[in-house]
């Protein structure tokens, strides 16, 4: 008897589960032939460290760390030996906006070129100091230059800087895109980053509540400069996608935003987000610094459609308008 009442009262049978996927692409940069320029300077400092000047803003995405990693890699010097200056327009050159998922690709390229040019100048100077006849046999490693076949013939960056305190390198990178014609034909963006997402949801058919049970996001990164940072972008993009699909709307009425506070403008909390299985597909992009493509925006795009498709799979209702709130779900389920 008790059991039957429990059944009548519902419980888990009234919760429906469903899976859905979303697959998307994203073209990096300003695009459409617009001059998309990043500039960077590299300079050897007196203490043998290297200063990188690049106006790429750190907005939380990790630009500083990525630029430093690219500089370290190019010059083969420890992370601590790279001094990044990006916060002052009177010092750092214009590297374009921290948007359009363009900093790693565009400014990363500029930093790489600047460091390559600096490295070339350092090797040139080292050649003189070490009294060798060509740069070709010289190796840059951990802040020193030595002759590959005779490693004890070696000079440190610091010693080089003391002899020539004017070693610099400039890097300019311009993304290659074309302006489209009157039929919208052309090559408007490059590179494109792909992403695919799968989610499983549970929809409570009596209250309209949606729970995201689990998720997987696969991202074509070219090359992950810093996998932890990439994963962080995936997590953050996923959460923003959950908000977009299920919660967020500024609520306009006659031009007025009704939801202009955090009480009313609802974004996901720690309890609304599941753990996410992440897969990074590495297929280096030829024109990118060490193959790394922009990923900040691409991580977000497939999330909301995957959720919408999962909701359909769960309850057989298609939503053409977001956010899909409990209210919309209940009204759809009780139509007629």
């Amino acid at each position, binding site marked *: 008897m008790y059991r039957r009442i429990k059944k009548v009262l519902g419980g888990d049978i009234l919760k429906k589960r469903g899976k859905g996927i979303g697959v998307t692409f994203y073209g990096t940069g300003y695009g459409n032939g617009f001059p998309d320029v990043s500039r960077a300077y590299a300079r050897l400092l007196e203490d043998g460290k290297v200063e990188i000047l690049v106006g790429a803003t750190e907005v*939380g995405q990790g630009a500083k760390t990525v630029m430093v*990693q690219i500089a370290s890699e190019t010059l083969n010097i420890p992370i601590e030996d790279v001094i990044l200056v990006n916060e002052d327009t009177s010092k750092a050159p214009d590297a374009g906006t921290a948007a359009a998922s363009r900093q790693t690709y565009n400014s990363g390229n500029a930093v790489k070129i600047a460091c390559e040019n600096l490295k070339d100048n350092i090797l040139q100077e080292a050649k003189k100091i070490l009294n060798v006849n060509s740069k070709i046999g010289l190796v840059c490693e951990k802040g020193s230059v030595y002759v590959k076949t005779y490693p004890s013939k070696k000079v440190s960056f610091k010693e080089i800087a003391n002899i020539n305190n004017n070693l610099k390198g400039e890097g300019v990178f311009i993304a290659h895109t074309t302006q489209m014609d009157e039929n919208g034909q052309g*090559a408007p963006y490059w590179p494109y980053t*792909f992403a695919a997402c799968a989610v499983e949801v549970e929809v409570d058919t009596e209250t309209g509540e949606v729970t995201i049970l689990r998720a*997987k996001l696969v991202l074509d990164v070219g090359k992950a400069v810093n996998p932890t940072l990439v994963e962080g972008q995936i997590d953050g993009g996923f959460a923003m996608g959950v908000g977009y699909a299920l919660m967020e709307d500024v609520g306009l009425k006659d031009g007025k935003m009704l939801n202009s506070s955090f009480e009313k403008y609802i974004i996901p909390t720690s309890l609304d987000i599941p753990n996410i299985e992440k897969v990074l*597909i590495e297929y280096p992009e030829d024109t990118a610094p060490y193959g790394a493509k922009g990923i900040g925006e691409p991580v977000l795009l497939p999330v909301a459609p995957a959720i919408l498709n999962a909701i359909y799979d769960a309850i057989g209702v298609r939503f053409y308008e977001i956010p899909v709130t409990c209210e919309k779900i209940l009204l759809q389920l009780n139509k007629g």
Partner: protein
Amino acid sequence: MFEFIGKNIKRIDAKDKVEGKAIYPQDIYIEGMLYGFTVRSKFPHAFIKVDVSEAEKVDGVVKVFTYKDVPGKNHHGVVLKDHEVFISKKVKRIGDPIAFVVAKSKEIAEYAASLVKVEYDILPAVFDPEEAMRENSPKVHDKDNVFYHFKIRKGDVEKAFKECDVIVENVYKVPMVDHAFLQPEAGVSYIDEDGKIVVIASTQYPHFDQEEIAQALGVSKDLVKVLTPAVGGAFGGREDITLQIHLAIAAFTLKRPVKAVYSREESFIAHSKRHAMKMYYKTGATKDGKLLALEAKIIGDSGAYASWSMNVLRKAAVHATGPYVVENVKIDSFAVYTNNPFTGAMRGFGATQVPIAYEQQMDILARKLGLSPIEIRLKNCFKEGSETATGQILEKVALEKCIEELKRF
């Protein structure tokens, strides 16, 4: 093999952040600094007359700035210069900046702001982009509200739809949403020992801000220095100018440091939004699941100002097919002025809205054709050498691999 690339190097800005030592603009206090508070439009469309005399009489108020006090050009904007620094004649949305009250404390500034008298001569307003597209609708900028129309034409959609075995047609709608970064806008401006006007603000693009500030001040760019301390999230919402120019004008005029910090509510009102879009989609495929034709009309609500709308609607159109090969494509995207909050850049930039449509279209088609969602996508997805709707030939495409991975979910 790489030494540093592909390694989980610890974020170089993390230590300061976990210790509470990272400095955001609101954390800057300068001896003797003044505080600014913005007076904003309460109506979406109206001619205004402003009287600041009562506010200026308040003890502790140093000056109330309006459009008359802009030394250089009273405009800014990332593409079109259609924002005014302070509204001179006509407000076009709720929240348009009208005056900037600078006082000895934020409480005084806020109080005095309530005494700035704004007389509104209310105009008919338009809030629905499709209505705004009509000829007889109220004009937001005294010209056609449709200020951008982008087209993609490839193949012959009419003919192709006739050859389709299945056609799915739907209308999708996405609302305006906010970046909701955690750090509300804040900034400090002062004149440094070299006589440069320094603006410390959280921005995504300091060099562009520098140019816009210089133009509004009527000084050369070299006289302006923008410092970007820690930025508490951006997501596109810090592309457009908010308080940078107001602060610079105040510091430049008064020769004293001036600070402003937005409340959460003002932050919502001041910065751009992600475009609301209405997306008319018609997608057709053969019975074996090959996409043949796609027609889409995408209408983006730009709100009162253009911001990045042209670029956003262009990006929406270019991405409107999804990552699939479709030989016959007809896409029209429009950016339309309304008296709503203005829309601009937000994570995805037009490529976030269209998947709500195209990825649901794919699932609807799959179901009609008896294919699994993965099958239909693998059948049509971009591969090495594929041609996009804009005729671009793709190389280095890892998409199939991405989709294959979803089989293991």
